């Protein structure tokens, strides 16, 4: 019996699928309350999978900043109608309504795109695809290597930036901080590829962890699918879907 690599509430593969489905739904459905409900359902899954409230707040403040911009600098065609005074500043009601709708839409899409990366374990997704869905090792592993080097890139870039500061590089040469990063990327990929080869990566390899989806994962995913289908039904019969 193979072991599972982590204790996720819902397998990362399913999280990825439900995120993609939800994003498609958000793009084609114009009924905002259905969108809010769907994202709430996704939020519950993300939250159970370990999403921190902090990230949720990041997305909220990002969307709110766009709301403020839209209200303070409204588009020309929104500068009409009723005027509301707030702290002795005049705002157009039309622009507030428009900004609020935009903020909600932006929040919903940003929530999915900005927080999914934190909860979906892409290593597990790639390994699931390799082990259970026949993804070729020689595609999967370089992809895995590239993804996992992002953390190293961040650290290296920070080091390079700090070194540029310590060396007091001339202003024009400050741009050359990208040169060592590029060299690092090329050399890291070269060494990583060599590591894969010299450590014996081959088609017949076994896996210690199973990376499989459990029955509980399937059950939870089916619940999501059921909710998703109901929402599609309401959206289609409500006539708010753009195709």
């Amino acid at each position, binding site marked *: 019996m193979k072991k599972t690599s982590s204790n996720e509430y819902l397998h990362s593969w399913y999280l990825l699928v439900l995120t993609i489905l939800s994003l498609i739904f958000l793009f084609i459905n114009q009924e905002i309350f259905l969108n809010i409900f769907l994202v709430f359902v996704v939020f519950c899954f993300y939250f159970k999978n370990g999403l921190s409230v902090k990230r949720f707040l990041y997305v909220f403040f990002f969307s709110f900043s766009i709301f403020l911009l839209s209200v303070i600098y409204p588009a020309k065609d929104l500068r009409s109608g009723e005027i509301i005074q707030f702290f002795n500043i005049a705002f157009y009601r039309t622009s507030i309504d428009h900004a609020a709708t935009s903020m909600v839409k932006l929040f919903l899409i940003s929530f999915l795109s900005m927080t999914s990366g934190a909860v979906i374990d892409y290593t597990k997704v790639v390994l699931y695809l390799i082990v259970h869905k026949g993804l070729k090792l020689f595609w999967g592993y370089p992809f895995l290597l590239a993804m996992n080097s992002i953390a190293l890139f961040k650290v290296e870039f920070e080091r390079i930036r700090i070194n540029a500061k310590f060396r007091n590089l001339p202003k024009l040469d400050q741009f050359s901080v990208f040169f060592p990063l590029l060299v690092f990327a090329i050399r890291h990929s070269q060494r990583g590829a060599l590591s894969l080869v010299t450590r014996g990566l081959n088609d017949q390899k076994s896996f*210690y962890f199973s990376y499989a989806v459990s029955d509980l994962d399937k059950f939870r995913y089916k619940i999501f699918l059921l909710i998703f289908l109901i929402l599609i039904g309401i959206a289609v019969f409500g006539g708010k879907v753009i195709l």
Partner: protein
Amino acid sequence: MFEIGPFEYQFKKNAKKIFTNHNIIIKEKEFVLITGPSGAGKSTLLSILKGIIPQFTSGKLSGEIHYKGKPLDGEYFNQNLKEILYLFQNPFSQLIYPSVPEEFFFTMENFNFTSEQMDQKKEEFKSHFDVESFWHRKTSELSHGECQRLVLASLLAIDPQVLLLDEPTAFLDPIARANFYEWLKNMKGLQTIIVVDHHLNEILPLADKVLIVGLNGEISQSSQRLSDEQKKMIEIVPFDIGIPLKNLIVPCKESVSLELSQVCFHYLGQKSLLNEISLKLTAGEVLVIKGVNGKGKSTLLKIIAGLIRPKSGKVSVMKNSKLIHYKNYFKEVGFVFQNPESHFFYDTIEEELKAFENLEDFEKLSGIFLKDVDFLRSPFLLSEGEKRRLSILMTMMMNKSIFLFDEPTFGQDQESISLIREMIIHLKAMGKVQILISHDDKFIESLSASAFELVEGHLEKVS
């Protein structure tokens, strides 16, 4: 087992060669030490023995090198995968996974070990290289030493016949290093071990054969006993730079001091790393910090450099009794990171050094730091040891008052260590404050500096 006939390898035209005019035989289960000056081509020789050169690298290899009577490249490369394993000099470049357990099992998985076999190996190695202490961490959070232990454990778990180890102890603390040599001693006679290492005092008694790669790239064979000339490579001796350094290093005219009071630090969501650290250094003082891998030595240097802020306590840098804001520490501090490549910004070594090129003496000094190196070469193409020396040289030449060195002697031969020591002594005479992290006891001793050990987040004086 290995028959190395007369051969020659050159990466590109006019580049340094590595060659031998003799026949060198490495027998089964022999312990071979490869030594020689930094940048001579020791890692290249290991790559040739693994078959990476010429299989995956450009360059011209002429001559015959055989393993069990067959070449190492082409179809034979795959046949030898399980038999010959190679630990790279930079362990981070061998990492595949973000989690430690998956990384540990990776090599075994590639050779179809069963779960039961892997579990057995896990138990064996978890305690052996103290892998257990970082089993639940992310690989990107590991220190160099921890990363080296992890990759080594992963490779050794498949019981290879030949082990090619490129400076396996470079980043290990003294305890881990002693354990590793003890383990090597036990492994001797069970596997063929070919190791590049600069800790000759410890490794030489284990070696059946010594291959010396000279600065001109020539490989010569020696017995366990080294000649007097070769023995010089072991000792740290006063190094005559022969250049008046007073023209190069600007003395500190202002009085500088560095003070840490009750500094505490921990990474988000992790246990305390540094606890109430207090110290004071004034002009011309040198302090060495030792300690086990992953215990916060590099973090302490980053706090001193103003790169991260302590959770509590205070770091103060004073110049002429005037407190300097931490955001301006970079004007006073020179920092040599563990990873030398992040110090380079230009296409050639010459461009890297252009800030100092008006000084003739500086060019001479650069020539001493980087012997036989074409300054029109890319600094990224230097050997690991040469890169490190270049990063040290560039930092030392900056007009700073405080210098922080993270493992300055890693990958250096004894002559280079002597040179670095000499430079540190000169900086000291010029009134610079210096803090070094080092695991090299002989080097620390030779500096006659105050040494502290970071134990459980506290700095304890070492006699």
